[in-house]
């Protein structure tokens, strides 16, 4: 079989002279007609640059193809894309190779209609008339299963949801029936149910058209579900490639092995009673000592918590409507345990966490922390209570003040509460750096000198400084590469075992949640739709939404394929209601002890 694409010894640099940075050192890979090749790696591995080089788009971003060949099989024999003229390359782009990108929100021009953006490529390559191009565009929209395609043609991107925009982007890439589709992290910015739909769509188009797919991703679970062959990249080089089953069953390179070990797989916690640490990159797998059996005692009791955000409009900013971010939420978090709030973007899980700490003011409800009412506390009492509850945020790049030394940031809570003074502060801060596994010479550094994982350790140290009982971790590992994510999760579990901490763990990642939780609450449209012990939620889900969420999560195991049938999930309605809207209270049925399901 003749390879469709053969990349040989590709080398890509950015910048010139002594400042030049090599983004891709030496990459060789092939894509055969009709197969899906996944290029997988963590940030900085050069996987995106490789795909942009194949399109020769890397040149527009300041990059240079410094060496190697990019052979493409065409009707009249192979050509080296690295050598063809810009005009010739323009003919190939969009015609023989189509490409889709990560961000559906920004990859369509906001000022043009969908029709114009679908047809201008067709007109450029195929010289179609306007009406012929429109007919073709309509056909494409039907093919990517967009409802009401005629109306969509006249609409602008902002009138479409993220998932629908990504379908339009795929339609654009498919317009001229390319033989190769390059997909650069096409589902990373999407919710898990939308991701499942888009992956199924790409798979169907590939099958129906015999098109090859070069799929760039960081997510091993997606790789397991979609790849025929896998190319693993690390720091600008290919470390391993082979058929997907072999890579997962018998990885050869140390890096691949470590990467796979760090990935939590949905379902692998079946039959286990307590959370377990992951085998992180570079760490010896060891069993952390189990937390001494604690008496089950409640720490945080949340009753009927409700948070609305007012929507104002007009000259006098009249309060016209409310966004019902958190609607009648109740749960109990026990001492020394982790309760996870899980759901898709906009479900209210973050607002719920921030309402408990009163970083946003809840509308009603009650929050008891160690039997003290948080919501009734005055400003002075609230400040005192915050000693007992701390928070870790998602974005490690934004959660530290760039102009403050790390030691000062970790020491800030200590000083605020007058816990330590003088040299005692320094000793305690040094102790905290030890505790989270950071060298003490980091103390006088600034945040920009640290990596994402190290910053998240600082955030943990800062939260620990006042010895709280509760830590709210809001998507605390979502922005991290998978190997770093595993290390930070392990640190959190270790701290829980040692210090008896309770975590309110807010996440969208079902596999991570399964790994770390004692209790799980699934949120949808501001409400908890199902809550219970981890095993009950994952092994015996009752609510329709929980079931569809679990069905959508890709499993990092090629032996468990999920994409056979094309999935279609219900879109989430708007949480905005007029002021006089009176929501119904959340009523639950007890499925079994401690496992509650929202009655619809």
């Amino acid at each position, binding site marked *: 079989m003749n390879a469709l694409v053969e990349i040989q010894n590709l080398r890509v640099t950015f910048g010139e002279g002594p400042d030049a940075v090599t983004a891709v050192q030496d990459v060789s890979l092939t894509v055969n007609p009709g197969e899906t090749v996944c290029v997988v790696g963590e940030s900085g591995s050069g996987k995106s640059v490789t795909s942009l080089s194949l399109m020769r788009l890397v040149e527009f971003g300041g990059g240079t193809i410094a060496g190697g060949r990019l052979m493409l099989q065409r009707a009249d024999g192979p050509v080296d894309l690295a050598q063809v003229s810009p005009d010739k390359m323009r003919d190939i782009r969009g015609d023989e190779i189509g490409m889709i990108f990560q961000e559906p929100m920004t990859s369509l021009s906001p000022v043009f209609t969908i029709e114009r953006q679908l047809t201008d490529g067709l007109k450029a390559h195929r010289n179609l008339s306007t009406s012929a191009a429109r007919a073709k565009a309509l056909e494409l929209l039907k093919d990517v299963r967009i409802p009401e395609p005629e109306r969509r043609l006249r609409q602008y991107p902002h009138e479409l949801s993220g998932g629908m925009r990504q379908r339009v982007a795929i339609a654009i890439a498919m317009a001229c029936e390319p033989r190769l589709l390059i997909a650069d992290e096409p589902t990373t910015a999407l919710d898990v149910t939308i991701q499942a739909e888009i992956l199924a769509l790409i798979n169907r188009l590939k099958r129906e058209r015999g098109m090859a797919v070069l799929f760039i991703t960081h997510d091993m679970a997606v790789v397991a579900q979609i790849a025929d062959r896998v190319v693993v990249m690390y720091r600008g080089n290919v470390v391993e490639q082979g058929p997907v089953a072999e890579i997962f069953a018998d990885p050869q390179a140390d890096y691949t092995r470590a990467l796979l070990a760090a990935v939590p797989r949905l379902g692998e916690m079946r039959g286990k009673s307590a959370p377990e640490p992951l085998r992180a990159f570079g760490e010896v797998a060891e069993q952390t000592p189990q937390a001494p059996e604690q008496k089950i005692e409640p720490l945080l009791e949340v009753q009927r918590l409700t948070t609305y955000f007012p929507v104002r409009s007009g000259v006098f900013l009249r309060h016209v409507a409310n966004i019902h971010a958190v609607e009648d939420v109740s749960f109990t978090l026990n001492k020394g345990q982790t309760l996870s709030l899980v759901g898709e973007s906009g479900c209210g899980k973050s607002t719920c966490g921030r309402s408990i700490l009163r*970083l946003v003011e809840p509308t009603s409800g009650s929050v008891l922390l160690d039997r003290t009412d948080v919501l009734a506390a005055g400003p002075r009492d609230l400040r005192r209570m*915050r000693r007992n509850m701390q928070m870790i*945020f998602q974005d490690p790049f934004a*959660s530290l003040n760039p102009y*403050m030394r790390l030691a000062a940031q970790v020491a*800030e809570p200590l000083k*605020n509460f007058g816990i330590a003074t003088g040299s005692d502060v320094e000793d305690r801060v040094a102790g905290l750096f030890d505790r989270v596994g950071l060298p003490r010479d980091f103390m006088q550094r600034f945040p920009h000198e640290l990596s994402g994982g190290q910053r998240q350790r600082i955030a943990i140290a800062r939260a620990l400084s006042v010895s709280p009982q509760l830590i709210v971790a809001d998507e605390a590992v979502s922005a991290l590469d998978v190997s770093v994510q595993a290390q930070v999760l392990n640190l959190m579990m270790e701290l829980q075992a040692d210090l008896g901490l309770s975590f309110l763990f807010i996440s969208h990642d079902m596999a991570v949640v399964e790994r770390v939780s004692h209790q799980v609450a699934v949120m949808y449209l501001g409400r908890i739709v199902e809550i219970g012990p981890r095993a009950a939620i994952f092994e015996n889900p009752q609510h329709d939404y929980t079931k569809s969420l679990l069905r959508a999560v890709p499993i990092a195991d090629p032996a468990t394929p999920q994409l056979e049938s094309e999935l279609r999930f219900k879109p989430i309605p708007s949480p905005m209601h007029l002021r006089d809207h009176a929501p119904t209270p959340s009523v639950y049925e007890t499925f079994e002890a401690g496992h509650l399901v929202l009655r619809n």
Partner: protein
Amino acid sequence: MRRFLSTKGVIGGGIVVTMLLIALLAPVFVAEEMATRMDIRARLSGPTWTHPFGTDQLGRDLFFRVVLGAQTSVMIAGAAVLMSIVIGLPLGIISGYYGGTLDNVLMRLVDTLLSFPALLLALTISAVLGPNITNTIIAIGVAFTPYLARIIRGEALRVAQMPYVEGARAAGTTDFWIILRHILPNIMPAIIVQGTISLAFAILAEAGLSFLGLGTQPPNASWGLMIQASRDYLDVAPWTALVPGVAVAITVLGLNMFGDTLRDVLDPRTRA
């Protein structure tokens, strides 16, 4: 780019430092008398050895006048910008950090003030108060305040929404310390950049006010006044306009170059 940037930064910084030195040292080396002495035999003389920049219609030496003019310009512009920052900073921070009704009212007022062209506002205030150096400072300072307040408010709002500010609040930090430790250091780069650019605008405004006779008054030396005086002699002595005009241009250019460089260095978001 980096090469051009650094060239730009070096030239800009060089001009700014030179102008500051001239403005500060002018009174030491140039006696008032040297700039007001009238050389009757050399009225409207072109550049010569005795008068390197030529003389004006009264035979006064343009070199000394332009040097003393630098002092006036820099002093008025500096004081005016300082004044607008001193007023605009607390307004902007309070508005941006606390938000709510206060923010709505303040920003409505600021937006309305922005409907008045800055030069018109400054001219009106100066005309109403009576033109002199102090009132020129007040006029330009008041006219620039809404711009500064708007920009500072925007920055304060941006920083107030950063997770590290929320984190500090969660860690029990009081508003006072949040503003001092977290908001202020993080909006400082924007204030420095905006201050530099405002300084350039203030120099232009002072020249404009004086040119119209509603700023610095004779016999004080001012670049705007010198250009005003040159209007009747343009045909015979164009250098009387060129000398102060070029002085304004170089100073403002230096400040703009310096401001651009600062923006590139301090603010990665606008680094194009």
